């Protein structure tokens, strides 16, 4: 038995996505920049994907820059837009937080950090002297939904450019980047049934973004390096099924609520503001989150503690720590269960069983 409850880390590939990638693998192996038939064939897959992604987010294809994933898209959005004083939140993904730290270290950028106590973000931003705002739309660990529409409107009134990390928002919220009016918005294929290794940065036409990678004028000079037609083919197909994913969200949220209700016996939910329906983050009493993740994995239930990270070392959830600065045990005992449209009621029953079984080991 195996139950996958880590959809915020990566989503299983939709069958159509696998099919498209298999086809692309055979057909689109050439360098898409090459001036010959094979190169054109590869390029056609990429441009098809670009059109699909653009259509899914309400953008023009020319404004979509493909990247190697959400992290690179966030890095490009944060570091590609010139700024002297950046405003951000205390709960950003490391792809944004560490890019800002880099700007502080190497460019002397100043930073203003807005707290999100208990998962509740302030309605307005302190924009005094700020010339770039970098904020996420949906939190990766708790699912907190930040008031990005309102913030972007406020920034537009003040003439301040805004980068939005929408990696966790895509497929969970209706997104129309043109209507939103931000300067740049980052997306990741792996959160919507697409593969790892594919992401995008939408860039408003009036926003200048300097390429971070060096060595080529690909993506209209905004991202050097040949894009991967296979991964992007998968991204495109996943994006074209975004409506189906969004339509499933109410059912996903109902399952999340059922799962969460079963967990409340063992702990408290982290985050009390508005949030999306795909995730619950629970501080499990008396447990260390990393150990609980290991114990559940042995039982066949795949979950996470903090943000997925390749170092192999668990660290207490930075987001929960930032939301509850005075309650260290919340971050240490955080368990993140994230669901997707493919999560079934049987999955939940099995997961709840396994959680009961594991948690009861400490009662005996």
């Amino acid at each position, binding site marked *: 038995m195996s139950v996958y409850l880590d959809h915020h880390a990566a989503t299983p590939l939709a069958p159509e996505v696998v099919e498209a990638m298999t086809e692309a693998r055979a057909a689109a192996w050439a360098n898409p920049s090459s001036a010959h038939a094979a190169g054109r064939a590869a390029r056609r897959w990429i441009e098809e994907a670009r059109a699909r992604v653009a259509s899914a987010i309400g953008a023009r294809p020319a404004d979509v820059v493909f990247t190697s994933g959400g992290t690179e898209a966030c890095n490009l959005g944060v570091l590609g837009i010139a700024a002297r004083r950046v405003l951000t939140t205390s709960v950003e993904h490391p792809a944004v937080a560490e890019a800002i730290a880099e700007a502080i270290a190497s460019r002397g950028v100043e930073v203003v950090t807005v707290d999100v106590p208990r998962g509740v973000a302030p309605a307005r931003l302190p924009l005094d002297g700020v010339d770039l705002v970098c904020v996420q739309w949906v939190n990766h660990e708790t699912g907190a939904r930040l008031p990005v529409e309102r913030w972007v409107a406020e920034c537009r009134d003040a003439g301040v450019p805004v980068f939005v990390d929408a990696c966790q928002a895509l497929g969970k919220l209706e997104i129309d980047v043109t209507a939103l009016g931000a300067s740049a918005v980052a997306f990741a294929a792996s959160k919507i049934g697409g593969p790892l290794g594919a992401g995008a940065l939408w860039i408003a036409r009036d926003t200048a973004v300097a390429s971070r990678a060096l060595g080529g004028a690909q993506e209209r000079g905004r991202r050097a390096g040949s894009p991967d037609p296979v991964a992007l083919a998968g991204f495109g197909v996943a994006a074209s099924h975004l409506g189906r994913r969004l339509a499933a969200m109410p059912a996903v949220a109902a399952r999340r609520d059922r799962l969460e209700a079963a967990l409340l016996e063992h702990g408290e939910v982290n985050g009390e503001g508005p949030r999306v329906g795909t995730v619950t983050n629970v501080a499990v009493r008396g447990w260390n989150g990393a150990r609980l993740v290991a114990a559940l994995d042995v039982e066949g239930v795949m979950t996470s503690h903090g943000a997925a990270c390749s170092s192999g070392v668990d660290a207490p959830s930075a987001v929960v720590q930032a939301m509850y600065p005075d309650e260290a045990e919340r971050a240490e005992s955080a368990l993140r269960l994230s669901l997707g449209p493919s999560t079934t009621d049987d999955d939940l029953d099995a997961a709840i069983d396994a959680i009961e079984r594991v948690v009861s*080991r400490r009662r005996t």
Partner: protein
Amino acid sequence: MSGGERVLVAMSGGVDSSVAAALLKEAGHDLVGVTLHLWDASGGHAVGRCCAPEDREDARRTCDHLGIPHYVLDERRAFRERVVDPFVAGYLAGTTPSPCVHCNQEVKLGRLLEIARDLGATRVATGHYARITRDASNAIRLHRGHDREKDQSYFLYGVPLDVLDRCMFPLGELRKGQTREEGRRLGVPNWDKKDSQELCFVPDGDVGGFIERETGVARTGEVVDASGEVLGHHDGVYRFTVGQRRGLGIGGGAPPRYVLKILPDEDRVVVGDVEDLAALTAHAQHAVWTGASPAEPFEAEVQVRYRHRAAPARVTPTPEGFAIAFHEPARAIAPGQAAVVYRGDQVIGGGLLAV
């Protein structure tokens, strides 16, 4: 004992634990690999030590090879509180602490057993060179590993019997060479990896430098002989251990001198001749016995440091621990080190040498 029962195998990333895991896997056990993250590697000496990222990757690679799950769990706080801080305090107090004894006793095995319970495992396996046996009355006994060069029973004397009862040491009957051979036979990825020689958290072996970095203090003082005559100067009493000959800063043609005593309050190191180093008696505190606590004096062999051949002695229980009366003078009895009492290959008990 194969199948069914889930076993947690502790993976350091070294050859020994990797081969231990491979042997248990071959025997059909349901294994879960766990690496304890005990200390953050820093500086340029990150390879071949406990807790370096490379070691975690080696542990993960071995588990992937064996097809078993692998988790890295953070026990840095416990390691600092129970091993590193007392280690630093011990050196500052002029003793020579035994961090591996404290780690095995207070962090590793006990903590692993607790993790095992959480993970639904009933036993903990490690790559220690030691043997766990049962006597006629089914009581647990700890014995030396068959490879006397690698034997680690000295570091394990303080592990409670109820913990040992749930431990497995698959390498206890192997020699190091055999372990590598088994590793090669079983395709263990790191079977030819170099052994680590130093303390895992002081990989360059510079204990003095480590203590100065940890505490931010640097002390200096005098090297004196028994009569108090100043023979030289040293840069920190924590750089010395009783019996040490090198690094005293009193070279020349004089006969070799050895550290006899460390006087931390005066920042003095007392040195003398090799004959002065020998002692017939010693005291140990914090005694732990593997059976009932002895009431009467008894004959046994006592080992006073890891690389010491256990010497015949009369052991007399005292309220604080036990007194040791060696039959032949023993050299370099350093306070803080463990005195482990053996009868043949069997560990009877142990304690920490007192000042």
